[in-house]
């Protein structure tokens, strides 16, 4: 009946007038019944949907129209099927229109360095190691990444912070007189300060070791009289063993100023000491001046009702860590004076400015102030500033380009500031200039300098070095060689961390804390280990050029003892991460079964198949699920244990409005139901009051959770293919692994170029995926292919 109205209604607003002419007949015939101004099924009104290429939101909707028709999802199954040629013609018409519009809008929007890139760049340029990331506001994100130009904004307050950050870094480089001497210091817990603790909380043994029975808190396990006398890299050696334990004892190595505020304490890493005889742990780490070391044992416990204080440390039967000594050696300095000092002072000599009151100089925490004079300040500034600006701007800066900064120097100097102060002002301006803060990329093909910057920020997260800037990156062979060089550099670690932070959302891993009652086995070591696992796994894929299919399922995992215990895998000892082969029927392998992914896609109490399903769709399969229609409240989970979320979600199956999207979204989430919020395997849900009691102890305490309803991990893909569990789901995914490879390529290119992949990029992405498939989807090769692509080499 509706159709008649359309045909007859000359007075009506044209059916799909908004759409491009060639696409209209198809839309009129097959879409307008449901998607006109009146019906607006699913909230979509095609008659009003703008075709303006500049309207990003509308363009996105048209792409979705295209995709749903291409997938055969629309018109919906119960409606008349259009003829194949008709659909083909429509797709061609709409497709070429969308390609043209996407092409016209395409291009990275002027991309600011994000705060991590900024910090890396600043530190590398000046040869210092200051922490300025937290001084800057959090960066905006798009598509999960904080490298997307369009989403990176800048405010007045941020400009102020940039000025402050630049000053901090410049001071670190300039206010440094003598090269700090290398010192070796050893210390134990047996000092005057701890006299009262020994014999009361701690035990002193015949071999001189002090046994600590507390994990943290009181008494403090910060090593007394052990501080970095100057900022730099230090070798740390911890010697000790486990006391009254059967397994090696784990400890966290923490650094910080350990002042009364305790705001800068950082956990560096976790280590083990042997159960029976003394062992040593060697770590190299960075320490700011004045920072110290804390050795914090993990997982210690004793019988209920006992404690070291109650029983006396010599009689207490619980476990402890016997610490013999902690030594530090450093700072180990690679370059002196710092690079920034050489760049900005040239031959000018530093001399210390004595404080007004000379006694202040002896006080702890006093920061010496320096000045420097030059024989010919104006000439020196003109000699040094172009080199500094070139290094900062990542391209040659001649006298003309640097003139405004030289004038700034002159003005400061004229006002009576010394050479160092005037240079510092000019340098601050250079570090706040748009040429420093932004990656300047014109439209079209990038020249070799712009490519150098883009490549460097992609794989090392910092500015291009001299070799990269000198390379003729327009030559594919040279580009490949340089890419290979960067892949082998230690800075690749920065890439893996930043890329997985965005791709797999690992940045949010601590967004929720697992409920202590439900997950008593969760500890800091597990959190630390699960992050290392995923980063090591991706690094291994790159290192070995292993197939992207390993993201779905792999015959190995990167584990340490803590993870192996968590996953139920025997034979792994020590807390360092190493490659472990997995048996064929293992429940682990691939990225999706890793604890970090399972935690970050859940909250602290329960898992949601929808949230995990969206995670898999978006990040692994490269399908962006549309947001829920407006006005739909979330489903409130019931953790009393009465119903599972899956049962509550059964509504999705019945409602047509919900079903369309949820038959695609939910299935991966169902497969992952076999893994709990911290990535442990489960066959029953844990609940707080209802269900079967569990006879199990964790760190000496009985668990208080109960076992509720059984897990149902079966599901059905939109294609109709069924799976009974995660293993079955993985097999189905492997059959369609090209899609996973394509998704990874897309994520890499979004991260690298700082822009969204659009409709007009699809053709090239298809080619890249096909070429990658021919090479077995090796991830290292994929990165090379991404760098060689037109997408990467153009704005």
């Amino acid at each position: 009946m509706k159709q008649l109205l359309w045909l007859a209604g000359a007075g009506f607003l044209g059916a799909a007038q908004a759409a491009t002419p060639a696409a209209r007949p198809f839309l009129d015939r097959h879409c307008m019944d449901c998607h006109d101004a009146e019906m607006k099924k699913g909230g979509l009104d095609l008659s009003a949907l703008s075709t303006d290429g500049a309207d990003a939101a509308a363009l996105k909707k048209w792409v979705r129209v295209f995709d749903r028709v291409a997938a055969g999802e629309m018109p919906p199954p119960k409606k008349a099927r259009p003829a194949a040629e008709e659909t083909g013609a429509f797709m061609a018409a709409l497709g070429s229109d969308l390609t043209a519009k996407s092409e016209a809008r395409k291009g990275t929007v002027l991309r600011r360095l994000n705060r991590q890139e900024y910090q890396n760049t600043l530190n590398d340029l000046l040869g210092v190691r200051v922490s300025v990331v937290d001084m800057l506001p959090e960066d905006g994100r798009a598509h999960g990444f904080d490298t997307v130009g369009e989403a990176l904004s800048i405010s007045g307050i941020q400009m102020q912070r940039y000025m402050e950050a630049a000053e901090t870094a410049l001071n670190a480089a300039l206010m440094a007189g003598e090269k700090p001497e290398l010192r070796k210091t050893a210390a134990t817990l047996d000092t005057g300060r701890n006299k009262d603790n020994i014999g009361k909380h701690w035990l002193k043994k015949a071999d001189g070791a002090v046994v600590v029975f507390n994990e943290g808190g009181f008494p403090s396990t910060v090593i007394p009289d052990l501080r970095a006398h100057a900022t730099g890299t230090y070798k740390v050696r911890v010697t000790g063993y486990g006391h009254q334990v059967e397994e090696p004892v784990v400890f966290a190595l923490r650094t910080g100023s350990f002042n009364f505020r305790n705001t800068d304490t950082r956990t560096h890493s976790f280590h083990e000491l042997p159960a029976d005889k003394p062992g040593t742990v060697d770590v190299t780490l960075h320490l700011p001046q004045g920072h110290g070391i804390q050795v914090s044992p993990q997982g210690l416990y004793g019988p209920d009702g006992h404690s070291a204080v109650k029983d006396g440390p010599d009689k207490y039967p619980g476990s402890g860590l016997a610490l013999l000594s902690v030594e530090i050696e450093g700072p180990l300095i690679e370059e002196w004076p710092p690079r920034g000092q050489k760049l900005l002072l040239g031959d000018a000599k530093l001399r210390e400015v004595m404080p007004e009151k000379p006694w202040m100089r002896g006080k702890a925490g006093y920061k010496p102030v320096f000045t420097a004079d030059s024989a010919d300040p104006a000439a020196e500034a003109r000699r040094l500033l172009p080199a500094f600006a070139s290094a900062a701007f990542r391209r040659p800066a001649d006298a003309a380009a640097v003139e405004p900064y030289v004038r700034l120097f002159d003005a400061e100097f004229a006002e009576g500031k010394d050479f160092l102060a005037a240079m510092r002002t000019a340098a601050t301006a250079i570090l706040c200039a748009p040429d420093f803060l932004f990656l300047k990329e014109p439209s079209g093909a990038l020249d070799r300098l712009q490519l150098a910057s883009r490549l460097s920020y992609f794989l090392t997260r910092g500015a291009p070095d001299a070799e990269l800037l000198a390379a003729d990156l327009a030559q594919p062979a040279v580009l490949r060689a340089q890419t290979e060089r960067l892949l082998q550099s230690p800075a690749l670690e920065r890439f893996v961390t930043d890329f997985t932070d965005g791709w797999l959302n690992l940045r949010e891993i601590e967004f929720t804390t697992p409920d202590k009652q439900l997950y008593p086995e969760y500890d800091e070591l597990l959190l630390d280990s699960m992050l290392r696992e995923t980063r090591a796994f991706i690094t291994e894929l790159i290192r070995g050029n292993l197939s992207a299919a390993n993201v779905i399922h792999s015959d190995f995992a990167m584990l340490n003892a803590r993870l192996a215990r968590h996953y139920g895998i025997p034979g792994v000892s020590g807390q360092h991460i190493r490659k472990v082969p997995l048996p064929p029927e293992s429940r682990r392998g691939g990225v999706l079964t890793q604890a970090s992914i399972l935690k970050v896609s859940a909250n602290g109490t329960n898992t949601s198949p929808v949230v995990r399903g969206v995670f898999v769709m978006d990040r692994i399969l490269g399908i962006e699920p549309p947001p829920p229609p407006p006005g739909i409240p979330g489903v409130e989970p019931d953790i009393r244990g009465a119903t599972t979320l899956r049962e509550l979600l059964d509504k999705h199956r019945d409602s047509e409005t919900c079903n369309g999207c949820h038959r695609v979204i939910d299935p991966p989430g169902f497969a992952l139901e076999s893994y709990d919020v911290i990535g442990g395997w489960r066959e029953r849900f844990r609940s707080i009051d209802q269900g079967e009691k569990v006879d199990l102890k964790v760190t000496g305490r009985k668990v208080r959770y109960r076992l509720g309803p059984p897990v149902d991990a079966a599901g059905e893909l939109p294609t109709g293919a069924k799976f009974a569990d995660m293993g079955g789901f993985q097999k189905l995914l492997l059959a369609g692994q090209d899609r996973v490879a394509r998704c990874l390529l897309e994520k890499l290119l979004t991260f690298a170029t700082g822009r969204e992949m659009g409709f007009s990029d699809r053709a090239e992405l298809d080619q890249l995926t096909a070429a990658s498939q021919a090479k077995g989807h090796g991830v290292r090769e994929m990165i090379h292919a991404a760098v060689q692509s037109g997408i990467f080499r153009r704005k």
Partner: protein
Amino acid sequence: MNIATKRHLDRRAFLRGTGAVLSLPMLEAMLPAFATRAQAAAGTPPPRFLAMCATLGFHTPYLFPKETGADYTLTPYLEPLRDLRSDFSVISGLNHEQQNGANGHTSEMTWLTAAKHPGLAGFKNTISIDQLIAERIGTQTRFPSLILGTGSESLSWSASGVPLPAESSPSRAFQQLFVDGTPAEVAAQVRALKRGRSILDTVMGQAKKLRGELGHRDQEKLDEYFSAVRDLEGRLVQNEEWAQRPKPKVDAKPPTDIQSRTDAIGKMRLMQDLVVLALQTDSTRTVTMRLSGMNAVPEIPGVKNDWHNLSHHGQDPAKIEELKVIELAEFTAFADFLAKLKQTREGGRPLLDSTAVLFGSNLGNASSHSTANLPLVLAGGGFKHGRHLAIEKDKHVFSNLFVSLAQRMGVETDRFGHSTGVLEINQA
């Protein structure tokens, strides 16, 4: 509502006119419109605005009274406010529209902006109400606004949709507000500010050059940089003037920051005390405070579980009862704060009368992440209070309240966010 007209001299015009050096002290003629000597004598203090958001929600069955109007029974969360009954109104039935966003908590980004779909693709936030107010009247005080929070994030967003960081250290804020530098320090400060302006002049010139080399979309992005530099420049100029003006004297000791990460109520109270001082000394007239929940156990007697966990109670009655302890503590602190504002006099009148305080949350139900029917309490500001205002469905949106609050602060506008009208409290 009175919309004040600017009767004072425009400072920039004055300075341009005289060609004077910027180190002149503020002349009487330049005292702000709302507080000229004459007006102060007549007893008309300037209006103030304060917004506080508790990001983990409030369990509304314990807040909203069953009855509407003036004769309502106090609910558990309103019990601490029983002595201040005529100084506040409970408002139910308001929300922003289309707040489903990137995750269940992103609505805290838009509580003061009303922008839609926070965090989803293509999202760009808009200016928050406090910054809009600060833009219009901020130059009248040493600090155009005070952005506070118990964490590093704030409720406030700039005009270009950029998030503004929060000050989370009351001791640092106190320092900035009330502690004068020595003459040498002041001189050094002025020199440093002038140096800052020279740096900005230099980079601005470079940005202008760069702009000419860019395509249209990149130019738009660079314009953000221009705005940022200009904004900072303006602030440096202002700061230079203020640097030479002595700071107000307060009869209070500098606060000591709370070390414990989990003493949320302690932090809230300390911050509120600071706000009283800031408003009392007219250091600022618009304040926001983000009261962050946490993924940890807050230090409140009787609370043993993670706060975030409790707020997502999943209808577990034990969790709801424990959550109540936390939220009641928040409301108790709030009540004490209002009492303090009421006791503090200004020209014979309670400070509370000139200060509109909006207290609530971006979540109507934290357990289901619902942003409908937001918990809101409006206090002070000279409004007619003592009622439970239940706004009928579809009659008003939350933005409508912001329009009237902005107008009261001297912003000449009849729209804010996605307002569909104006919600006048006195006439509702």
